[in-house]
């Protein structure tokens, strides 16, 4: 037995790059293959035993870090990794995890770093947001899209430029306070400026049951200003909701929004944050239909500055949809292209989608030095992504619809939108495009 042990201890160990101990030697610069082969067998054995535990620990630590870094980053992580992922860190990933993974992470860091710079300098476009979609969370992309605006605002504040309201005559006059000094006015007097009421507001108001009957008047309440013509019934104008305020006069469209149809009625939102907050407050099973309207791209629906991918949309709407409820992504290419077609317009849309979402980013990546295999894998996966189908698998039972093609909305055309006055519409109206709907991942007829 002792002889056999002596023989095995004396056997030389060949250099093996797959073993953690050898990776450890390479990282620390202890040995390379040549130096290892020259080492006596006993010393080799001792060296392996000495570093074994440390090598395994290092391997586990690098793999854990890589797992965290390979997930989609939020805005904070994007900034952190853009700074922290230096050559040393990346070399560790190449060594301990694999060269393909290392290259992918390096590419991710390069793209995110350049987009962070671009976002601060000139803002990012829809195509940039699409390029970032595999790497960042939708919230992070939303934040990047608003970075330029925030930077400009900060610069203006630094330069001492006072923020102005709309430059109309009526608002200009608000600079001068027409009544007595504001400091000498109490709340009652101040409110009179707006209501025109001469009542002091000090007298007690009695509310009796009779006064509150239908058609009854509250004491002291003035009748609405009726028109002189008796045949014309006075209808006080309804209060504008948030989405309908401040209409644009631009020639081009800035239409986007979220429309929520629940058991309690329909609401529209321009800001995704408001829509998200409203949806979170809703009871389970109350959403009959929700329409996300804005620019779309394979795997992503944008709504103004906000954006949704299948994960964020499913998370938001899980449990909220009524039975047979519909989630409509009203954005271009929010479903896959589907099968062959004889419709030439659909064919042209397919060609355009392939060119814009595969060929263009593929050659851009190749020009940036990304290996062909990696660029191919990434964009072949991305150009035909099906947001509607993926979301339907996350929101069980709901019907999720998207567009297989570029969706043309006549009301968005420059000039037409100005004529119609719908530059800031929150719903698309008629969309010329091929719709596809899914329920639990399976295609179903359009409801």
């Amino acid at each position, binding site marked *: 037995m002792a002889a056999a042990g002596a023989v095995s201890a004396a056997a030389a160990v060949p250099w093996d790059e797959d073993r953690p101990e050898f990776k450890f030697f390479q990282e620390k610069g202890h040995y390379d293959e040549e130096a290892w082969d020259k080492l006596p067998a006993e010393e080799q054995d001792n060296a392996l035993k000495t570093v074994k535990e440390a090598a395994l620990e290092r391997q586990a630590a690098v793999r854990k870090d890589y797992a965290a870094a390979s997930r989609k980053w939020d805005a904070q992580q994007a900034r952190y990794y853009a700074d922290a992922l230096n050559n040393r860190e990346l070399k560790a990933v190449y060594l301990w995890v694999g060269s393909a993974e290392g290259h992918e992470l390096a590419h991710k860091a390069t793209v995110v770093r350049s987009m962070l710079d671009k976002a601060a300098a000139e803002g990012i*476009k*829809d*195509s940039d947001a699409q390029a970032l979609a595999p790497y960042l969370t939708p919230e992070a992309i939303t934040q990047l899209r608003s970075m330029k605006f925030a930077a400009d605002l900060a610069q203006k504040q630094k330069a001492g430029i006072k923020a102005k309201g709309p430059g109309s005559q009526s608002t200009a006059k608000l600079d001068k306070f027409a009544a007595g000094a504001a400091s000498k006015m109490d709340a009652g007097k101040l409110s009179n400026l707006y209501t025109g009421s001469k009542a002091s507001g000090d007298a007690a108001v009695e509310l009796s049951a009779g006064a509150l009957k239908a058609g009854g008047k509250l004491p002291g309440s003035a009748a609405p200003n009726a028109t002189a013509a008796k045949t014309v019934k006075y209808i006080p104008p309804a209060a504008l909701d948030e989405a309908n305020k401040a209409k644009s006069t631009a020639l*081009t*469209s800035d239409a986007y929004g979220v429309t929520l149809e629940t058991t309690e009625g329909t609401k529209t939102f321009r800001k995704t944050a408001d829509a998200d907050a409203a949806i979170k407050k809703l009871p389970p099973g109350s959403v009959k239909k929700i329409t996300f309207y804005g*620019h779309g791209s394979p795997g992503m629906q944008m709504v103004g500055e906000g954006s949704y991918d299948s994960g964020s949309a499913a998370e938001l709407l899980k449990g909220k949809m009524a039975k047979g409820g519909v989630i409509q992504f009203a954005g*271009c290419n929010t479903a896959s292209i589907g099968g062959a077609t004889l419709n*030439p*317009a659909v064919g*042209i*849309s397919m*060609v*355009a989608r*392939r*060119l*814009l979402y595969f*060929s263009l980013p*593929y*050659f851009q990546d*190749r020009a940036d030095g990304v290996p*062909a*295999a990696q660029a*191919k894998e990434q964009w072949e996966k991305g150009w035909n992504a099906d947001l509607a189908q993926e979301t339907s698998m996350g929101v069980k039972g709901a019907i999720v619809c998207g567009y297989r093609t*570029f969706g*043309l909305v006549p009301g*968005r*055309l*420059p000039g037409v939108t100005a004529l119609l006055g719908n530059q800031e519409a929150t719903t698309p109206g008629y969309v010329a495009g091929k719709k596809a709907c899914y329920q639990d991942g399976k295609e179903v007829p359009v409801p």
Partner: protein
Amino acid sequence: MTDLYYILETILLVAAPFVPVAAGVILRRKFPAAAEGAPPPTPGQKAGRLVGNLLLWCGIAGLLFIVIVVLNFKGKI
């Protein structure tokens, strides 16, 4: 090899919308409108010119459609 394949694919995809326009122009030249005093065109010549016109104008409509799609992609509309 991968790059070559995709370059060829891109050339074909970019060329595809121009094919009906080119075919339409060729057909219109092959079957020109009847000049004054010339014998009236045969039904076959009429059909050829009609197909040429259809291909030409549908092709131009297709190109305009692509322009709109690209503008949409760039976020202009």
